[in-house]
């Protein structure tokens, strides 16, 4: 294996971020490279002379380092498991194997690069206008575009690594660890606030970490402030952590090495700095063209020589410092091109002149000259520029260089301010937006606040921190004044040069050019929001950090508006790309188990989810169908036991308990005697069936009510709500989770139960629909004689901690009869044989009791019950549909639930339940149909996958129509 490519760096410096004692090796596009610990992927590759780091989204143009801080999306990589790794900010790890995303073939020979040559056929918004005809081609276009679009390939087999999420709270959250952020932290910390200072890079200092000649005292300043912060125990520093979103009342989402922190801050200081903005000219996107701060980061933090020979294009004095830094890094500075007619007289300008670097004032870069294959640049054309920004392209000079470094201005990193509802206004003199109105509890400091000098930023941060600390304790805010700032007009108002041949890129993520924005305005998309959506400017992974301002400038010029009037688009979370995994966290999905769960596991249950509950669907080792048949037959011929602990279980107590139930349910309960239970049907106010269960009387002022498993939480809520509204003297006690329950059913169930209790459970002693409280197997039980499955049966409800012991006792007692547990599927089949409806299965969101064959459970003559008024309105009208049973003797083609009942072209209803009955030997089911079709013997048509099958309407119940078995 060949040795990894490794080019040595510039001489060591105290402020570098690399550890030269640790060498790493990684692969990129099949080649091995060396790196130092502390290198990012971009710094390591650029340092090893690799200039082609990625391809653009639309035109697949070659791209290299641009911002060196992921404010662009040029360097996006994948490693077979993780997608869209940001090369500028991701540290190299030993053994990494990386490829660039968004290539067809390879990065070097990307076949999709042909789209760049076809760009004339792919103008702005072309996809809104193309691909419509011929119609039949559209699916092919769609498939092709989906294949080409998108960044990275998901590996479905990649191991899921949970990303923790946690909560925290503080008095003052400071976002940004530059000089203003550190000053704010010191001020707030000294005032006694609990402060959390968040910095998204690996150390405090912000732009001072790489300021070089632009701030010669930066290292000393950073070190001093860091030392002071370390002394304050109430100031916590979190590095490598970024605030991704600001939500209402200062709830902020932060992502760091430990996952997401959901932070609630009483006050927030936004000291997020500013995004350096590029100039726009032809081929301004090619490898070798980069921002001034990118060159500074490479040179100072990673000790990488950014290029061999540079042209520095600038619109502010900061750029002169960049030129000096390049020279100090051994770069030959061919010239400084100053967009301004009159250059400054500051120290940096003087030092550049002293260094013998040529300054071309009142000039611009008209175009960069690409090297072979567009994989770099070999020079640039420099032309005079008028004061209105137009370029005099007929005169100019060509300059040889392999790098163009741009320092033309800034835009505030005010995303969080915008998300919090703050406003930014355009300040003409500064040629940039600045925070204007901030929501209460939010304060801005430093470059984001339009303050650029180092001392001014420190002063501004101190003031913001003091105000934040006061706000956090409800004190009056100290006065604040704008610091005297030695930096004036740090941004050029229009660093944009049109070119007749185009390829002057405003948004590198989306390959949006100047002409795209101009053409969009001409087509009527003349506001910032419309231009964004039509051209996609600002919609890429960078979310407009280095494109929105220039876009607004171009749009303003094209439409004759001021930039302030054009404004900016809405800021929304997240400030940086955030993975779905980080948002999902540990994926808490609570599931519920009955207290008898372990017994089901031991018995070989195959579980199913019923809402949040895990319930036995059937019991092994038989396969599903055989197991269900076996369980059904056991219940019909001997005895079975099912865990019904998921049912809602509610005690309704108090002097008005009976009245309360009268109002909540359709039936009568005031006349329910002690020791009896009754079917309870509940409707909503529109008369639609919403739940059912049983209600038993425990005493004069106490009832025990069951609900469906899925409805219990909602019914408890509704009961409490109505109790409050009606002002009745009633107490609702939810015992759903506190009780377990089991149902013992089958002709032998009496014999089995009789061995476990002294209660008289003879036919006369414990009649059908009776209710008793007794000790069974040493456990206090509530017993109901109910027959959901159509057999002699007893439902036993016990405190949860005793349920497992009771289950064991019943199973043991039933051994002579061959008792077995039966699951949900067997129960559903058994109840259907008995013609019993399941609410939510055989009813839907519009079903009234009158349609579902439950009119018998509705006592319309009561003074009031929920839904009565609506039912009184519909009762006189003929039903549109009715629920009925049906059988199929020929079950070659068996319908499924929801298959339609039809009569010619008319849809009459649908199948709600259907199964092959082992008891009856044929298919049975229930369906809604026209009322005139419900006469037993009527043949109905059911549409199954385009063909019609016949079924015969049958009287319900299918099994034991005289109810002898369940009432025995």
């Amino acid at each position, binding site marked *: 294996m060949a040795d990894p490519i490794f080019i040595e760096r510039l001489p060591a410096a105290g402020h570098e971020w690399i550890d030269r004692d640790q060498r790493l090796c990684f692969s990129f596009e099949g080649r091995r490279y060396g790196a130092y610990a502390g290198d990012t992927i971009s710094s390591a590759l650029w340092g090893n002379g690799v200039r082609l780091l990625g391809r653009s989204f639309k035109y697949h143009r070659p791209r290299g380092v641009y911002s060196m801080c992921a404010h662009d999306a040029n360097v996006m990589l994948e490693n077979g498991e993780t997608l869209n790794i940001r090369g500028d900010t991701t540290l190299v790890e030993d053994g990494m194997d990386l490829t660039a995303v968004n290539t067809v073939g390879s990065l070097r020979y990307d076949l999709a690069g042909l789209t760049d040559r076809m760009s004339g056929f792919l103008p702005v918004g072309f996809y809104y206008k193309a691909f419509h005809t011929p119609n039949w081609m559209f699916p092919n276009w769609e498939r092709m575009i989906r294949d080409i679009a998108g960044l990275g390939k998901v590996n479905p087999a990649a191991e899921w690594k949970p990303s923790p999420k946690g909560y925290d709270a503080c008095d003052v959250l400071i976002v940004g660890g530059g000089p203003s952020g550190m000053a704010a932290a010191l001020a707030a910390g000294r005032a006694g606030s609990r402060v959390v200072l968040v910095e998204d890079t690996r150390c405090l200092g912000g732009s001072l970490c790489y300021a070089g000649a632009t701030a010669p005292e930066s290292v000393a300043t950073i070190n001093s402030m860091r030392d002071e912060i370390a002394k304050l125990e109430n100031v916590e520093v979190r590095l490598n952590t970024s605030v991704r979103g600001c939500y209402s009342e200062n709830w902020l989402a932060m992502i760091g090495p430990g996952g997401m922190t*959901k932070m609630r801050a009483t006050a927030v200081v936004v000291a997020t700095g500013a995004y350096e903005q590029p100039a726009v000219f032809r081929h301004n996107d090619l490898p070798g063209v980069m921002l001034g701060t990118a060159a500074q980061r490479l040179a100072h933090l990673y000790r990488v020589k950014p290029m061999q020979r540079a042209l520095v294009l600038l619109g502010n004095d900061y750029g002169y410092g960049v030129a000096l830094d390049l020279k100090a890094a051994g770069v030959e500075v061919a010239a400084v091109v100053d967009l301004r007619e009159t250059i400054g007289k500051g120290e940096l300008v003087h030092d550049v002149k002293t260094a013998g670097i040529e300054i071309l004032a009142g000039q611009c870069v008209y175009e960069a000259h690409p090297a072979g294959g567009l994989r770099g640049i070999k020079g640039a054309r420099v032309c005079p520029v008028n004061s209105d920004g137009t370029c005099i392209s007929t005169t100019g000079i060509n300059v040889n260089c392999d790098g163009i470094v741009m320092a033309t201005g800034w835009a505030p990193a005010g995303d969080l301010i915008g998300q919090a509802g703050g406003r930014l206004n355009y300040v003409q003199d500064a040629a940039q937006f600045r925070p204007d109105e901030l929501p209460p509890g939010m304060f801005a400091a430093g470059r984001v606040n339009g303050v650029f000098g180092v001392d001014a930023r420190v002063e501004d941060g101190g003031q913001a921190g003091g105000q934040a600390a006061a706000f956090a304790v409800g004190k009056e805010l100290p006065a604040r004044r704008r610091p005297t700032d030695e930096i004036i007009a740090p941004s050029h108002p229009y660093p944009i040069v049109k070119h007749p041949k185009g390829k002057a890129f405003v948004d590198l993520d989306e390959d949006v050019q100047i002409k795209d924005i101009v053409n969009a305005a001409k087509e009527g998309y003349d506001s910032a929001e419309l231009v964004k959506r039509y051209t996609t400017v600002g919609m890429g992974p960078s979310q407009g950090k280095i494109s929105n301002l220039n876009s607004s400038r171009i749009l303003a010029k094209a439409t004759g508006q001021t930039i302030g009037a054009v404004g900016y688009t809405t800021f929304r979370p997240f400030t940086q790309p955030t993975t779905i995994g980080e948002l999902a966290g540990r994926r808490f999905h609570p599931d519920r188990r009955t207290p008898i769960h372990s017994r089901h596991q031991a018995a070989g249950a195959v579980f199913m989810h019923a809402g949040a509950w895990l319930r036995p669907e059937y019991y092994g080792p038989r396969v599903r169908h055989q197991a269900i048949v076996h369980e059904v037959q056991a219940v019909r011929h001997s005895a079975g036991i099912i865990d019904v602990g998921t049912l809602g279980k509610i005690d309704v107590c108090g002097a008005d308990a009976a009245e309360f139930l009268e109002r909540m349910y359709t039936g009568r309960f005031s006349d329910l005697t002690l020791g009896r239970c009754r079917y309870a049907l509940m409707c909503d106010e529109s008369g639609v069936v919403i739940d059912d269960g049983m209600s038993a009387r425990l005493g004069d002022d106490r009832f025990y009510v069951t609900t469906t498993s899925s409805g219990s939480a909602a019914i408890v809520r509704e009961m409490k709500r109505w109790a409050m509204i009606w002002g009745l003297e009633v107490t609702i006690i939810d015992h759903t989770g506190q009780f377990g329950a089991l149902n013992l059913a089958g002709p032998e169930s009496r014999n089995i139960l009789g061995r476990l209790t002294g209660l008289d459970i003879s036919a006369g002693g414990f009649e059908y629909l009776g209710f008793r409280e007794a000790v069974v197997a040493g456990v206090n039980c509530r017993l109901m004689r109910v027959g959901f499955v159509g057999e002699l049966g007893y439902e036993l409800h016990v405190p949860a901690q005793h349920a497992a012991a009771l289950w064991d006792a019943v199973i043991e007692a039933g051994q002579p009869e061959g008792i077995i547990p039966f699951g949900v599927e067997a129960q559903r089949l058994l109840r259907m044989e008995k013609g019993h409806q399941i609410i939510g299965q055989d009813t839907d969101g519009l079903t009234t009791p009158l349609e579902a064959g439950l009119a018998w459970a509705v006592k319309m003559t009561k003074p009031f019950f929920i839904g009565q008024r609506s039912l009184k309105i519909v009762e006189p009208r003929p039903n549109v549909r009715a629920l009925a049973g049906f059988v199929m003797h020929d079950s070659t083609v068996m319908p499924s639930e929801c298959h339609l009942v039809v009569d010619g072209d008319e849809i009459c209803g649908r199948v709600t339940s259907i199964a092959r009955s082992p008891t009856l030997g044929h298919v049975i089911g229930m369906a809604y149909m026209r009322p005139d079709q419900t006469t037993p013997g009527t043949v109905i048509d059911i549409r199954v996958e385009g063909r019609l099958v016949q079924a015969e309407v049958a009287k319900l119940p299918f099994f034991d129509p005289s109810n002898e078995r369940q009432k025995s």
Partner: protein
Amino acid sequence: MSTTAFRTSPLHSELEQLSPTWTMVAGMQAASCLGDNEMHLLETVALCDLSFLPRLGLNGPGVTGWLQTQDIEVPAAMYELATLSDGSSVVRIGTNEVIIEGVPGAGTIDKLTAALATDVKDVFNVTRNEASLALAGPAAADVLAQTCSVLVRDLLQQALVYTRVAGVSAAVFQQELNGCNCVRLVFDPSYGIYMWRELLKIIAEYGGGAVGFACLFPESQ
């Protein structure tokens, strides 16, 4: 009527897999010890099943008055926890709703349950079979911060908070047990196994684990 059957913790099947030493406490087979060196887990974070602690719920307009007749003074403020002379605790969770948690051997719950056997006007027995866990150790606050928006440092002493822990509604309060500052979690037992597993996953990342109840109730072994 009296119950003679044993109680089973909702975490029983999970504890079984940890080869516990079982001890009968308050009618429940509880895990008193889960390993020889389990005490060291309290130096990071430990999870303990306390579902054996007997609990009684009372609801109704007559609750406060009736408990006074039983020499139990219910705090007037909602969610305020009071400790009784025998170590049991009482908390008001509604205008007319109270929970009493006993300690093993104190007999308070049995006494009150027996007194309720005769119908007491406007006092209704609420079965309280919740799952009950304790998180102990310096990292307990961090574990809780990953599952719950209530921060331990904001938990008032002697006060209950109802919130969601790992997506499950739970009562959370601080309690000192055997000299350890614990965070107690009490919730619907049907979520017991889910909560136990989720918390242990997080706890394991801190080097902690499950411990038997003897670490917190040494006198009940």
